[in-house]
Each structure stands twice: as structure tokens, then as C-alpha cells.
């Protein structure tokens, strides 16, 4: 029996409405691809930045947080007072904050989180951030007082790290597989090896997210990543692993390409205690033998900013000291001769897996060979690199990117893997720690940069860039990466 016209019209109208609805709904869902999958979902007990890349600011929040320009802004703490001597911080928490399981977030949870991080059997990979805390006390449900053993100008900065987010004792048992935080998104599902799904937190204490849901897909292979983007299987790829394809995406009107800066200083780490690298003239020679731009163009396809010291160039206190190590192979040969090595010497160059190291290493080996320095290259996996280079200090040169923000302090540790021991620098770092006046801090940081540049501690190569390829209609993606995070709270689709 043929369908009556009226019924047919109603069915088609319904079908049209459904498809129309489906199109509108798609605009509030986002699929972001990342290269690395988190090993688990607890940012407070592992070093893997991949955990923060998914959960920081989306699911978990701390007392303070990073804004997209790298500045520290209030997070769960809406304001704070610092005592005269700088050893006591009183945080005032936002009211009405709840965890995703409905329980309320109050000063008790802050105490629990900080005590857990600094505790004796804490598994926190950045325990040093909490080292100066002597006591955390609950003044009232919305006020926490943290006492430090000494003034620490970076305390607020430290509390913004992913390792310092606030967690709840009620849900701490299963945090690795079922993270419960206070953020604008709730954790919804994790298909291991494939994706993590988040949904909007309807009861968020702050401005709700524009997106209904977000899915993080994990694609480690650069070619697969390129294919997924071109086939529009994913809407955005943060830290796109195939920079050689960026021009193609830039030319395609479907996509936008955002290239920003990170906190990753890529350096040619030098073992300052291994002869002949213990001679500052030799290190200076190496610095002048290196052509940074050639490395950026050859290894990173032109994406990256040259640096002359261990500091992020987008930071207001950055000092451009690249002239100290300008490309000058003749000067390099002259310095080597002055140091007693007119016939050059041989050393090891141990390279971890990332392409900036493998590709960059070959370019540097060629540049060093041109001035007479022979390097024996060995390609290591991360676990081997940690054991041989980082812990064993059994290397001459290596290339690695230090991605922690504001980490110039590592040069004050004589037992750190490059074994730089300068008491003047160590004193400077100690003074910096207890200094809170911004102008004085700036001057100190610039002084620090000058010292390590002048001592040629390491070969300072370039700052890692973070290329993001996304659908042209997406708004609000961060350009820079002041910390490892994919903050989706302000991301939306334009119409």
C-alpha cells in the first residue's frame, strides 16, 4: 500500500530535522589529536607531560594556573596574601566549587593535596616544588594557610604546575583510571591506546566551557597524523609531528596553522667535567662552530627560535645573547688551537629518540667535524639515555630539550648531568629564590642568563616551537605552550 503524501512529508520533515540537528550538534564537539598517550590519569604522580596535556586545566585545577601568555593567574584560589617576610601564604578559595562527583572542594582538600605531594612516600615527580612547605593549615573551609621555611619568589609559580593540582581524598584511590577534579570538563571514558573522552561539567564554578564534549585521540606516527588531519578525521592536532607538511596545510583554506613557542630550550648539553670539554675555550669553540639557523632549517624545517642562553625567548626577561656564540668556524679553530687542540679531538654524541636530537645531531656532527672535532654518534632510547647520560654522566655531548618552565635553576646544581659548578651562580639562584620584588628578580634572571652564556656551559640551540594544525573554524586554541597543556576551556567553533 503506497504511503500517503501527508505521512511522507512528515517523515521527510522529521528526517531533515534530525540531520539538521546532527549538523548543529557536531559544532560543539571537538576531536584533538596528540602524539603521546598518557600512561595514566594522575598528574601528581608521574613525569609524563602527556597526562597534563589532556587533563591540566580541563579536568584538574590548582590554586593558581598558567594563562595562555605564560603569566600566573588565580585558579581555585581567587586571592591570596603574602606575609611581610614571605614565608606565609594565605589563600582564599572560590566558594561553591565542587568536584565532578558532587562533593565540595574546600580547604581540607587543598591540605590533603599538598600534604600528599610533599609526604614521605609521595610519588610526585616534582617533589622539589613542595620542598619548602613546612605546614599547611585549614583556617576555615575557604581559607588555607601555607607556611614555608624561607621566602620563595616562585611559590605561586610552582603551585600552577600540573603536579600541584587539587585532588580529593574520596576519589584518590582510582585517580589513575578515573580522575575526578574540579575543572570545566569531566572525564568520561578512556579507550586505552585510542582516545580519552571528556564532557562538559555542567556544575563548573567558573565560566562554563563552550564545547559540549572533547575527545583526545592519540596518533604517534607522523604520517598517520598527517593522513588523519587531511581526511578530517580529527579537528585539530596540537604539536603536529610532521612539520615538513605545514606549508601544505597553510595553503589549504580548510585549515589554520598556528606556530607558537614553548618552554623547551633545546640545548647541546656538554659534560663540563669531561676533558677536554672542561676547558671553557673548547666549549666556546664548539659554540662558534655551530650554525643554529642551519639546524633549525635542517632538523625542524624552519620552525623554532634561536636562543643564546637557557631561557625562553617569549619571556619578558629574556636577553638575546646569541651574538656570544655566533657562527664563526675560523674563530672556533683558533680557539681550539689556543686550547692546545689544533688537530681537534674526539668525543661522544649520544642522541635520544626525538627528531630534534637525531636530525639535529647529524647536522651538529658535520659542523663540528668542519673545525676538527670528531664525534661518535650513538642513538639511544629514553630509558638508555636516562641511565647512561642523565644518571651515569657517561657522555661528552648530547642534545635534549628541557621543557620545564623557568628552569634556569638547574645550572645551580653541580651534580646535574652537565656538572656545571659555579659558586657565584649558585649564590645568585639562592638569592633569587628568596626575592619577591619583580624588578630585582628581572635583573637577577638577566644576570643569570649572562653568566651561563659567558661560561658556555652548553651549546644553546633553539626554543622548540609548537605547531598546531586545526580546522579553520576553530577559535581559542593556545598559540604558545607555557606549560604542557591543551587548555580547551576557551575553545569554540565559529560559525
Amino acid at each position, binding site marked *: 500500500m503506497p504511503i500517503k503524501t501527508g505521512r511522507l512529508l512528515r517523515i521527510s520533515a522529521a528526517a531533515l530535522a534530525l540531520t539538521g540537528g546532527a549538523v548543529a550538534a557536531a559544532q560543539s564537539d571537538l576531536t584533538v589529536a596528540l602524539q603521546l598517550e598518557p600512561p595514566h590519569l594522575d598528574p601528581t604522580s608521574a613525569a609524563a607531560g602527556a597526562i597534563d596535556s589532556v587533563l591540566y586545566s580541563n579536568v584538574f585545577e590548582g590554586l593558581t594556573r598558567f594563562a595562555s601568555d605564560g603569566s600566573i593567574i588565580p585558579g581555585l584560589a581567587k586571592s591570596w596574601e603574602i606575609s611581610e617576610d614571605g614565608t606565609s601564604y594565605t589563600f582564599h578559595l572560590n566558594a561553591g566549587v565542587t568536584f565532578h562527583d558532587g562533593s565540595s572542594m574546600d580547604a581540607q582538600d587543598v591540605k590533603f593535596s599538598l600534604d600528599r605531594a610533599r609526604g614521605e612516600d609521595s610519588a610526585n615527580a616534582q617533589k622539589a616544588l613542595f620542598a619548602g612547605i613546612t605546614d599547611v593549615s585549614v583556617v576555615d573551609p575557604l581559607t588555607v594557610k601555607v607556611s614555608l621555611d624561607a621566602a620563595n619568589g616562585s611559590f605561586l609559580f610552582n603551585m600552577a604546575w600540573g603536579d600541584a593540582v587539587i585532588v580529593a581524598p574520596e576519589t584518590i584511590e582510582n585517580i589513575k583510571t578515573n580522575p575526578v577534579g574540579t575543572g570545566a570538563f569531566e572525564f568520561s571514558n578512556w*579507550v586505552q591506546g585510542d582516545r580519552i573522552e571528556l564532557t562538559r561539567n555542567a556544575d563548573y564554578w567558573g565560566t562554563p566551557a563552550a564545547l559540549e564534549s572533547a575527545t583526545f585521540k592519540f596518533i604517534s606516527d607522523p604520517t598517520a597524523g598527517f593522513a*588523519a588531519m587531511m581526511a578530517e578525521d580529527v579537528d585539530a592536532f596540537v604539536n603536529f609531528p610532521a612539520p615538513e607538511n605545514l606549508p601544505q596545510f597553510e595553503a589549504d583554506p580548510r585549515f589554520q596553522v598556528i606556530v607558537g613557542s614553548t618552554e623547551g630550550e633545546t640545548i647541546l648539553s656538554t659534560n663540563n667535567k669531561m676533558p677536554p670539554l672542561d676547558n671553557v675555550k673548547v666549549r666556546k669553540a664548539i659554540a662558534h662552530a655551530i650554525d643554529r639557523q642551519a639546524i633549525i632549517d635542517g632538523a625542524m624545517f624552519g620552525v623554532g627560535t634561536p636562543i643564546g642562553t637557557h631561557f625562553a625567548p617569549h619571556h619578558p626577561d629574556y636577553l638575546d645573547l646569541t651574538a656570544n656564540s655566533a657562527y664563526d668556524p675560523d674563530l672556533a679553530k683558533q680557539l681550539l688551537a689556543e686550547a692546545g687542540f689544533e688537530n681537534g679531538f674526539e668525543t661522544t654524541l649520544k642522541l635520544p629518540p626525538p627528531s630534534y636530537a637525531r636530525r639535529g645531531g647529524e647536522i651538529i656532527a658535520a659542523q663540528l667535524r668542519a673545525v676538527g672535532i670528531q664525534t661518535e654518534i650513538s642513538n639511544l632510547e629514553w630509558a638508555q639515555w636516562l*641511565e647512561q647520560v642523565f644518571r651515569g654522566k657517561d657522555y661528552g655531548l648530547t642534545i635534549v630539550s628541557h621543557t620545564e618552565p623557568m628552569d634556569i635553576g638547574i645550572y645551580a646544581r653541580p651534580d646535574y648531568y652537565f656538572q656545571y659548578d659555579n659558586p657565584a651562580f649558585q649564590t645568585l639562584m639562592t638569592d633569587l629564590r628568596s626575592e619577591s620584588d619583580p624588578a630585582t628578580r628581572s635583573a637577577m634572571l638577566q644576570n643569570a642568563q649572562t653568566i651561563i652564556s659567558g661560561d658556555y656551559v652548553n651549546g644553546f640551540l633553539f626554543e622548540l616551537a609548537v605547531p598546531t594544525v586545526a580546522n579553520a573554524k576553530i577559535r581559542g586554541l593556545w598559540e604558545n605552550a607555557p606549560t604542557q597543556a591543551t587548555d580547551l576551556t576557551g575553545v569554540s567553533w565559529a560559525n
Partner: protein
Amino acid sequence: MIPYIFKRLLSLLISLCLASIVIFTVVEVAPGDPAAFMLGINAQDDTILALRKELGLDQGKFARYLSWIGGMLSGDFGLSYTYRSPIADMVGERLWVSLPLALYALGLSVLIAFPTGLYAAAQRGKRGDAMVMGATQLGIAIPNFWFAMILVVIFAIKLRWFSAGGFAGWDDGVFSGLKSLTLPAIALALPQAAILSRVMRSALIETLGEDYIRTARAKGLSKRATLWHHALRNALIPVLTIIGLQFSFLMAGAIIIEQVFFLPGLGRLVFQAITQRDLIVVESVVMLLVFAVIMVNFLVDLAYAAVDPRLRSQA
């Protein structure tokens, strides 16, 4: 029949035992401390020691070997160092991708190889045979990951018939799951089909040279009937061996295809575990794969007994 099965079972157990020792030794010898890797460069020494203790890494090698074997025999494959979740569950989840993929690829491979091999054998010496030989030569020579990337460029990027990768899951239905496995299965199947059809062809040609085939034809049986009823059954023995080997390869060796299509399968699990120094996952999953391969070979041996009456009456 029984002594045959018993002998096969004994060799299965010995192989498993030897394999476990080799796997354990090789994995343990690998340099790098899993705890140091997991906690990163800023971790303090006491945190690393605490983690080593938690993971049981402070025990001696022999003690760890025994507890690993003991655990496996009772079904407990231990907890992954990285994910801290039961390995049995992880493997179970990944099997839902790797096993269907392997079967799908095997099915496609057999579907392509059998008619091709039959046709080539029937047309031996003539042009059809030469064409098939040429095509299979190409199929064997082409690297499957390159072929996979070509498939992605054509079918995913240009035509948009499939997604570029990823696994949609079985929750949305069998069809959507199979759709995400189709391009990977084709990429895996083609080289395998090339090999299998050649084996089929040569096995058939050899069988067709036997006396009983000439007798059948002399009795008046048509060429096709001879092929079907007499030649095929006998030619199946070498073909079954190859199918068994191919299944083992597809289960464990699909790692590159899993990377290209970013599928959450067993191959990628082992690969990631090796880079993350998740020793216990590597040991347990490799052991499981070895077990699967040995089991498949055992089943193929049993299939021989079913197909070949000479084996059934072996003393």
C-alpha cells in the same frame, strides 16, 4: 592417533618452557630502569627507590621469574608498570582489535588466494598462469606498510570512503568496527594472499602430477571434477601450514600496520611497552603470543591428522 597427539603435546610444553626462559632473559637484560623512566629527570632518588620497591624490582631475577611463571599459570599476568592495571584486562581489550583484524585479513587472503592459485594451476604453462605469477611476485615484493599508506591516500584522503585510521570500537555495531578494520586488513592480506596463492599453485601442480590423478582422468572424470575431488584435498597440507604461519604473523606482526592506522592492538601495546620499559607487559604479552603461535601450530598438526589418514595410523 593418540601417540601422535601425545608427542605433539609434549613438544608444545617443552617449547613453551624454553620460550619463557628466553623471553625473560632477553627482556631483563635490556638496559634502563623502568622506575627512573616513569618518574622522569626531576624525580628524587628516594621517590625512585620507593617506586622500584612497589613494582617488585628490588627482588632477585630468579625470584621474579618464578613469580611471573606462577602468576601466569594461575591466570594472573600481573600489573603493568606504566598503567598499573591488570595486564590480562589490557590484553583482553587489545585482542578485540588484533584478533578480528588477523581473522579478517586471513579470510581476505584465503578468499583471494584459493581461486587465484586454482586458476594458475589449471592454466599452468599458459598465459593465465604467467599473469598470476607476475601479480603475486609484485604482491610479495611490495612492503605492506607502503601499500597501507597508498590505500590511506586513495580511500581515506581522496575518496573519504574510510577514515584514515583509528578503531571505531564494537559498541556502535559490528559493521562500524569492521569498517575501521577494512583498510588495515586489505593492506595485511594482499602480500599474504600473494604468498598463499603461490603455495596453493605449486602444491596443486605437484599433486596433479600424481598417478591417482591420471587414473581418475582415465576413468573419465572431468578436469574440474578431478581438481575438486582429488587434487585439492591433498594439496591442502602445505597450504594449511602456511595459513597457520600467516595467522601467527598477522597476530604479532601487524605492529607496523597498527602504527600506520593507529589501531589500539597488541602489536602497538608491545611496542609502546618496550619504549616505556614496561618489562612485565613485554614479557607477558610476548609469552602470550608465543603461546598462541605454538597453539596454532598444534592445531594445524591436529588438522593434518584429520586430513591425512597416513598420520592417523602412525605408531
